[in-house]
């Protein structure tokens, strides 16, 4: 008897063939629709972060300065300021150009903040400056992601949306961390990144301090017949100081035999937070100009650079210091002394640099 099995049934064939045709011709559109939904959620979150950071900044300025007019307009003007990085077709001298551009921007921001009110203290200026940078960065991230999304949607171009989809989780991690860092900056609390200044700050206590370069403190102490030059950003304001300029000044007038840098480092996935690691080379983040300068000085003078890092996530680095990280301070300090004894002999001079934001950390 002749029977129509599933394979020869015209209706069943349609059920199979129709989706194939649909996916062949409209696959990219379907993928675009699915991906768009995820990206839209991300953009909505980014918009929320942007609005929240702006609100927090304006509230902070209004609550802390009594005798000023509404600062909203001035702050809004600043949020859209951009920085054009120098052209890198001919890389010779690019570091100096980048340093000049970045420092000019910092200087401009500081002057802009100062212009809000004359009654602002240096600590308040540094806090507002940091909050402005956070707000400005969140605004920039939102604008870029939104632009890429809208362009892909307008062109109905699925491949254009792929880079956004790939980068979004990382951008969201950074943006969430920046948004979460606002309360700590407002209250002047120490951050995870402040572990370097915390370690060196304690070593500096009860010794005479001087300001050696912009927002950077220096103390000279003796340790087991060795001369230690202790450097950290000048606390308790929210600043990272200029350790590269400070090192240059020290090296110009002293013979230095070793440099030890203490910093927070991004942990890899699977690594324990607040774990301590030792290594070689300049442990300093940022845009790279300070690292370049420190490497240049130490190479020219044949000074070995040792480093101790405390591992942490992006969020831990820029939000209130966790208990695990704070508990490592004494351990790191003893490792610094150990490193000094292992790598230098009596009569030698060592520069110890506590790298990072010194918010809430005195010296």
């Amino acid at each position, binding site marked *: 008897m002749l029977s129509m099995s599933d394979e020869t049934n015209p209706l069943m064939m349609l059920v199979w063939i129709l989706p194939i045709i649909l996916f062949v011709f409209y696959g990219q559109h379907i993928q675009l629709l699915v991906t768009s939904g995820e990206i839209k959620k991300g953009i909505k979150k980014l918009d929320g972060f942007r609005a929240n950071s702006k609100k927090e900044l304006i509230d902070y300025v209004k609550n802390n300065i009594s005798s000023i007019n509404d600062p909203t307009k001035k702050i809004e003007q600043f949020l859209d300021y951009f920085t054009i990085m120098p052209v890198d077709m001919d890389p010779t001298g690019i570091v100096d150009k980048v340093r000049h551009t970045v420092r000019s921007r910092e200087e401009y921001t500081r002057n802009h903040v100062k212009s809000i009110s004359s009654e602002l203290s240096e600590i308040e200026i540094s806090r507002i400056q940091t909050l402005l940078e956070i707000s400005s960065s969140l605004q920039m991230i939102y604008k870029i992601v939104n632009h890429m999304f809208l362009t892909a949607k307008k062109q109905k171009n699925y491949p254009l949306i792929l880079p956004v989809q790939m980068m979004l989780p990382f951008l969201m991690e950074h943006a969430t961390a920046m948004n979460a860092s606002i309360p700590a900056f407002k*209250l*002047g*609390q*120490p951050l995870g990144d402040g572990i370097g200044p*915390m370690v060196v*700050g*304690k070593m500096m*206590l009860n010794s005479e301090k001087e300001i050696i370069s912009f927002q950077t403190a220096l103390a000279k102490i003796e340790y087991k017949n060795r001369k230690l030059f202790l450097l950290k950003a000048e*606390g*308790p304001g929210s600043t990272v100081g200029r350790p590269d300029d400070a090192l240059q000044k020290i090296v110009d007038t002293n013979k230095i035999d070793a440099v030890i840098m203490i910093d927070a480092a991004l942990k890899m996935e699977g690594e324990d937070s607040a774990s301590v690691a030792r290594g070689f080379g300049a442990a300093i983040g940022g845009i790279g100009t300070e690292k370049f300068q420190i490497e240049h000085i130490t190479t020219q003078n044949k000074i070995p650079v040792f480093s101790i890092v405390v591992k942490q996530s992006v969020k831990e680095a820029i*939000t*209130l*210091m*966790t*208990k695990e*990280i*704070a*508990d490592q*301070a004494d351990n790191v300090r003893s490792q610094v002394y150990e490193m000094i004894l292992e790598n230098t002999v009596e009569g030698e001079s060592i520069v110890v640099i506590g790298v990072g934001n010194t918010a*809430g*950390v*005195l*010296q």
Partner: protein
Amino acid sequence: MIFSKEKTILAYTVEKCPKCKKFHKRDFSEGDILFTNSSKCNFCDGITTIDKIFGTVLKK
């Protein structure tokens, strides 16, 4: 969200008495700065200094 837990960060300040070496943990208050003098020691007549400031996560 159904599966996400709301996280609150509680900030604490740990004071250390340089005289009797005892620690005292209290809630963070605005103006607390690491290594500054804080309050009178509860155990002796020393003046405590702020030794640590940190946050712990409270999951709801």
